[in-house]
């Protein structure tokens, strides 16, 4: 229950009943601030009530979150990190830093992070089990793979009652096999090749957005396409990336068996890792044919997912600016 301290300074009965030393100290501090209402104003305009609540920053039952645009936090997770004071970053070239961060175990420079789970040591990102083999296979193995897939598709056609030998279906197994290998080519792609050194020191610290990137992916549950648009925004920390690299990274993660939630998150994490900006935000809206063509069959429904990192996660205003600029739901 939210408690307000009266200007006269008398302790409210509930606070006394809590018997929490911390609360009393905080209330005294708040009074000293001149607020006079026992509430402390944190950065970013979020008001947090310090009077009640359990350990780990849990709220008392019945108390509302003060900001609905902040992501809800489960108290069983790690407690909210303390808001850091802004300190000037030294202008370290992210290109050089990226190389260092790519090798495991490097934690020297304060502006690098520990090796990301997103990008492996050789630039692949969440490769599947056979990816590295497939990268190194010769023509004979490729033929063998294609032949197995053709056999499987032929079985599919027979099972649905079609005649695999009629003219229209004769080459369908091969076409489908090649199409599926194309739709899953993202596993083989190497982030370093994609980015290709296109990171430039620009001393630009305003938001950069690339919106309406068409994305086509395959639903891993039904092997049916889902397609839509992705909007990517980031705030550089002095280094900008070539604009086309953002859709290329999106393409790399989309050409796989995916779910929309994971796709959004992987793109955001990859850009964060490669560029190390102040923050990254990715929003994706798409239509899932597995829901449109079959099952519940709702044709006009759209699914929207998002992933915000860095300053977009911390600051509501930044997040709102991004969301209004991309104009989802207009």
């Amino acid at each position, binding site marked *: 229950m939210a408690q307000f301290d009266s200007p006269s300074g008398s302790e409210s009965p509930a606070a006394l009943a809590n018997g929490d030393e911390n609360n009393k100290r905080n209330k005294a501090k708040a009074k000293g601030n001149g607020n006079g209402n026992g509430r402390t104003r944190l950065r970013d305009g979020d008001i947090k009530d310090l009077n009640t609540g359990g350990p780990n920053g849990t709220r008392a039952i019945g108390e509302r979150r003060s900001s609905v645009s902040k992501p809800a936090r489960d108290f069983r997770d790690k407690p909210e990190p303390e808001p850091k004071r802004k300190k000037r970053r030294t202008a370290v070239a992210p290109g050089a830093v990226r190389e260092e961060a790519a090798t495991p175990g490097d934690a020297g420079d304060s502006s690098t992070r520990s090796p990301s789970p997103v990008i492996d040591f050789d630039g692949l990102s969440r490769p*599947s*089990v*056979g*990816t590295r*083999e*497939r990268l190194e296979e010769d023509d004979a193995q490729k033929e063998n*793979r294609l032949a*197995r*897939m053709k*056999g*499987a*598709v032929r*079985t*599919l*056609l*027979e*099972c*649905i*009652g*079609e*005649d695999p030998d*009629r003219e*229209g*279906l004769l*080459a*369908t197994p091969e*076409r*489908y*096999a090649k*199409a*599926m*290998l*194309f*739709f*899953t080519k993202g*596993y083989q792609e190497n982030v370093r090749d994609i980015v290709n050194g296109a990171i430039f020191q620009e001393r630009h610290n305003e938001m950069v957005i690339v919106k309406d990137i*068409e994305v*086509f992916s395959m639903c*891993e*549950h*039904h*092997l*049916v*396409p889902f*397609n839509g648009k992705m909007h990517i925004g980031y705030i550089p920390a002095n280094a900008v990336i070539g604009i086309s690299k953002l859709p290329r990274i999106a393409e790399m993660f989309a050409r796989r*068996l995916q*779910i929309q939630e994971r796709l959004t998150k992987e793109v955001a994490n990859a850009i964060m890792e490669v560029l190390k900006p102040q923050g990254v935000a990715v929003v994706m809206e798409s239509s899932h*044919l*597995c829901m*449109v*063509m*079959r099952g519940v069959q709702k*044709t006009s429904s759209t699914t929207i997912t998002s992933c915000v990192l860095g300053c977009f996660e911390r600051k509501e205003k930044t997040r709102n600016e991004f969301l209004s600029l991309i104009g989802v739901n207009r």
Partner: protein
Amino acid sequence: MSPTPSISSERISQHGDPAELGRELKMEGQRNISDAVRTILECIDEDPAREGLLDTPERYAKALLFFTKGYGEKVSDIVNNAIFREHHHEMVIVKDIEIFSMCEHHLLPFTGKMHIGYIPNGFVIGLSKLARIAEVYSRRLQIQERLTKEVAYALMEVLSPRGVAVVMEACHLCMVMRGVGKTTATTITSCVLGSFEANEKTRNEFLNLVGVNK
């Protein structure tokens, strides 16, 4: 008009043999499809045992059988005697029927809208039957040209109106997601029979009312 080859008394179309798909055969077919899908997943280097893909073969098998359920449907059952004697000789159009079909060349969906019009000859058909007939022929492995033609011929056969016109505009994912990758391209096909074929004015009136390209 000589009997169209597209509908015979027992079977729906010249390809596919739906009468034999009994229930047991369907289960066995589903198992075979699941095994085939597992092979495909291995060939694209995915791990069929990871959580997200564990039931995917079964889900895909059911989805594929749903997308090809049109083979097992008979037009006479679908129409269900919803043909009524009515002294109406003006054009009847049902437009913007959403169609989802599977391209037979790449096994990828193509989706779009179909517009069906006919001029009755003393008999009208229940309006939903037009959409249902379209559904019967679209839930198969198709090409857009054949789909349009089959719907037109089926309606002509079942109702014997003065004329039938079917126009379909669709977006082919096989062309959008891969290959040439043109996302805004639409394919339009049409089939006109009877008075629509004979009279330019009738055809024009239909095309104006349907409003493709407006």
